[in-house]
C-alpha cells in the first residue's frame, strides 16, 4: 500500500473518530476557561446523541436530506438547556462543580434510556434512516496527495469541527466576550471589580459547553452509532475532558489532542493489518493509544496550568 494511501487510510478515519471529541472538548474549554469544571461532558454527549436520534427518527420522512443537520441543531439546543442545571448548581448554588458534573452524567443517561423505553418500548432505538454521509470536497478533493488524504470521503461535520475550533479560538482570544470570559476564569474578583457579571459569564460558558457537548454527541450518533442505547456514548465524554486538559484549555490545543486520540486509535487499527506489525500481539496495539497519550504528556506536553479560578465558585466579597 502506497504511502499516500497509508496516510489516507489513517487520517480519514481519524477525522470522523475525532470530530465528536473536538466539538465536546471545545465546549469543555469554554466552560473551564470561565472557571466551571465540567466533567458532565459525557452526560451532555449522551443527551445530544439521544435527542439527535429521536429527532432524526421522528422527522426523517418530513425533512429528508436536511434531517441530520436539523437534528444536530436541535440536539445543541436541548443539551444547551439541559446544561443549565449544571450552571444553576455550580454557579448560583455554589455546588462543588465536580459533584453537579457527576450528577449531569447520571441524569442524562438515566433520562435518555428511560425515555427511550417510554417512547419505543425497548432499550435501544432503531437505526436512523437519515445519518450523515461522507463526501468528496469538489475542487480540493482533486488536489494531488493532499486531496485524497484530507478532502475525499470525509464527513462535513469533521470539517465543521475543525472550523469551529478556530472560531472558538477567535472568540476566546480576540473578542471582548472572550477576554471577559477568560478573566472570569482567572480572577473573578478582578473581573467583578471591572463591572463584569461573573455569574452571567459563567452561565453563558456552561450553556455553550452544553450545546457543544450536545453537538459532539449528536454527530457521534449520526455518523457512527446510528442509533441510541445505554452503550452509545461510553467514555467519549471523558476522552473529551482529557482532550481539554491535554490541549491546555486552548481551543486549538484541544482540537489537536482530540485529533491525536483519533489518529492513535486509527493507527492501532491499521497496524493490525500492516504486515510487519501483524505478529505484534493485539493487546499492544489495543493499549497503544492510551500509552501514547501518557507518554506524550509526560514527554513533551508536561505541566498544564488550569485557569486559576477553575472549580472555585465565585463568592462576592471574599478572597
Amino acid at each position, binding site marked *: 500500500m502506497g504511502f499516500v494511501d497509508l496516510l489516507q487510510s489513517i487520517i480519514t478515519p481519524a477525522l470522523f473518530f475525532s470530530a465528536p471529541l473536538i466539538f465536546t472538548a471545545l465546549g469543555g474549554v469554554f466552560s473551564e476557561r470561565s472557571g466551571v469544571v465540567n466533567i458532565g461532558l459525557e452526560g451532555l454527549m449522551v443527551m445530544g446523541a439521544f435527542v439527535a436520534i429521536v429527532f432524526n427518527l421522528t422527522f426523517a420522512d418530513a425533512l429528508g436530506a436536511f434531517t441530520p443537520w436539523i437534528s444536530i441543531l436541535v440536539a445543541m439546543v436541548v443539551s444547551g438547556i439541559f446544561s443549565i442545571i449544571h450552571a444553576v448548581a455550580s454557579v448560583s448554588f455554589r455546588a462543588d462543580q465536580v459533584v453537579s458534573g457527576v450528577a449531569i452524567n447520571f441524569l442524562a443517561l438515566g433520562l435518555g434510556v428511560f425515555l427511550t423505553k417510554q417512547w419505543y418500548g425497548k432499550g435501544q432505538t432503531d437505526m436512523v434512516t437519515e445519518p450523515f454521509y461522507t463526501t468528496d470536497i469538489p475542487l480540493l478533493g482533486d488536489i494531488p496527495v493532499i486531496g485524497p488524504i484530507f478532502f475525499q470521503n470525509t464527513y462535513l461535520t469533521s470539517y465543521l469541527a475543525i472550523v469551529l475550533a478556530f472560531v472558538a479560538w477567535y472568540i476566546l482570544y*480576540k473578542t471582548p466576550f472572550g477576554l471577559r470570559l*477568560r478573566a472570569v476564569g482567572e480572577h473573578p474578583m478582578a473581573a467583578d471589580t471591572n463591572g463584569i457579571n461573573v455569574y452571567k459569564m459563567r452561565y453563558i460558558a456552561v450553556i455553550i459547553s452544553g450545546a457543544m457537548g450536545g453537538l459532539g454527541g449528536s454527530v457521534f450518533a449520526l455518523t457512527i452509532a446510528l442509533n441510541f442505547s445505554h452503550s452509545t456514548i461510553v467514555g467519549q465524554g471523558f476522552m473529551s475532558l482529557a482532550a481539554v486538559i491535554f490541549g491546555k484549555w486552548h481551543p486549538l490545543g484541544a482540537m489537536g489532542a482530540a485529533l491525536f486520540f483519533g489518529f492513535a486509535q486509527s493507527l492501532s487499527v491499521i497496524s493490525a493489518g500492516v504486515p510487519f506489525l501483524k505478529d505484534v500481539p493485539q493487546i499492544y496495539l489495543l493499549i497503544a493509544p492510551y500509552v501514547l497519550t501518557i507518554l506524550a504528556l509526560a514527554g513533551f506536553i508536561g505541566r498544564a496550568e488550569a485557569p486559576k479560578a477553575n472549580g472555585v465558585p465565585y463568592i462576592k466579597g471574599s478572597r
Partner: protein
Amino acid sequence: MGDYVVEMLHIRKEFPGIVANDDITIQLKKGEIHALLGENGAGKSTLMNVLFGLYQPEKGEIRVNGEKVNITNPNIANDLGIGMVHQHFMLVDTFTVTQNIILGSEPTKKSGKINLKKAEKEVQELSDRYGLKVDPAAKISDISVGMQQRAEILKTLYRGAEVLIFDEPTAVLTPQEINELIEIMRSLIKEGKSIILITHKLKEIMEVCDRCTVIRKGKGITTVDVKDSNVTELASLMVGRDVSFKTDKLAAEPKEVVLKIDNLFVKDSRKVDLVKGLNLELHAGEIVGIAGVDGNGQSELIEAITGLVKSESGTIKLNNKDITNMTPRKVTESGVGHIPQDRHKYGLVLDYPIGENMVLQTYYQKPFSKGGVLNFKAIYQKATKLIKEYDVRTPSEHTKARALSGGNQQKAIISREVDRSPDLLIAAQPTRGLDVGAIEFIHRKLIEERDKGKAVLLVSFELDEIMDVSDRIAVMFDGRIVANVKPEETNEQELGLLMAGSTESAGDK
C-alpha cells in the same frame, strides 16, 4: 455639604462574629487627599469595600456630590466615578497591562474584534498624562509590583474615576516607588481628582494628606486636619494609648558566629544569577538589617538559606554546621525561623484554622503529635496562648486563617516563628501592612530575641525600620553585600547611594 464629593454617613457593616464597621462617618472634600487610619482589623478595607460596592452596609447612607446613592456593585461605583486600588491587586496575571485596563470596556473594531492597537495607544496617553510609567504590552506576571500598581491606578482612570481609593498602596512598594506614588497622587489632585488613602505609615499621612479620619475597632473616632496634628497624636488616636517610635534598645553585644555565608550563588526561576558570590556573617545577639532595592537578590538569598531554592555554589553554615541545600525541614530543625515576605503564598495555609497554622512546622513533634497521631488539645492550647500573647484579632482559634485581616495574619505568623525561638530568625518585611502599634510590638519582639542571644536577619525596604532596629546594616546590591555600616554612623542619603550601587563605600569604618 456641597463641597463633599463622597460622604459615608453612619455606616455599619457586620460580619459573622464581628462588627467590622460600627457607625463610621467619613466625608471626602473635592481635591483633597483624605487618610483613613486605623489598626489592623479596624475596618478600613471593609469600609472602602462598602464604598466600592463589594459589600452592602447594614446601616448608613452614602452620598456622592450630595446625591444619596445606593452602590450595590462595583459597576455602579465605576459609573459614579469611584475607583479603588485594592491592596491585593485586581489584575489577571496572564493578561497584558492593556488587557487588564480595558477589561470590561474594550474598544472594538466593526468586526467585533478587540482593537488592541487603539487601546494600547489610549493607555500610553493616559500613562504619559499622569506620569504613570507602564509598558502597555507587558504581561502582568512579568512586571514589578510597582508597575502592577500603576496599572491598577490606570485602570481606575481609564474608567474616568474622579475619586480614587488606595488600600495600603505603599505597603508593597519600595521607598523609591513610594516617592513616585506620592508624586502621582499629587498630580492626580492637580487633575482635580480626590483621594482616600489607607496607610499605616503616619509619615506618609503627614506628607501628603490634608485630613485624616481615624477609626478604632470598627468605630469612627475623629477626623483631624493633618497640618494641625502630628505623628504622635495620630498614633495615640488610632491605638488608644501612647506609642513610642524610636524603639529604645541597649547596645548589642555580638557573640559567636551563628550564620556564615561564603561566596554564595543562587539562580532564580528564570535561571539567571541573582545572588552572585555573596558573603555574610551574622553573630549571636545581633540584628543585621539587609538594606537594598527590591530585586537585588534579597528574596533569593533568604530562600537559599531556608532551603526553598537550590544554591548553585558556595556554602551556608549555621553554628558551623553546613546547611547548604538542606531541605526546608532540616533547615528549620537546625534552628532557623522564617517570617516570609509573601504571607499568603508561604506563611499560611489559608484554609486551615488559625490554630492549625500555628504548628505548621512543628505538627509532627511532641507534644503536638505522638506516633504520628495529632494531639489537637495540645495544638489548640498552644494556639490560644500565642493568639493571646501576640494579640492576634480573630473570632476564634478555629477561624480559618483566610478570614483574618492581613495584619492579623502577619501577627499570627510572627508569633509562630518567634515562639520557636530559633538561633537564627529571618524576618522579611515583617511589618508590611501593619499598624504602628503592631510594628512597635514586633520590633520589640525582634530585639528581645536578640537580647536572648539569638541572631536576627532583617530584610526590609523601609529604611527607617532598618535604621531603627538593626545593630548592623548590610547593604545588598546586585547579588552581593556591598557595604557594612552601623546605623548610628550613617544616614538615609548615604544608604540610598550605596543601595544604588555607588562604589565609594562608606562602610567598614
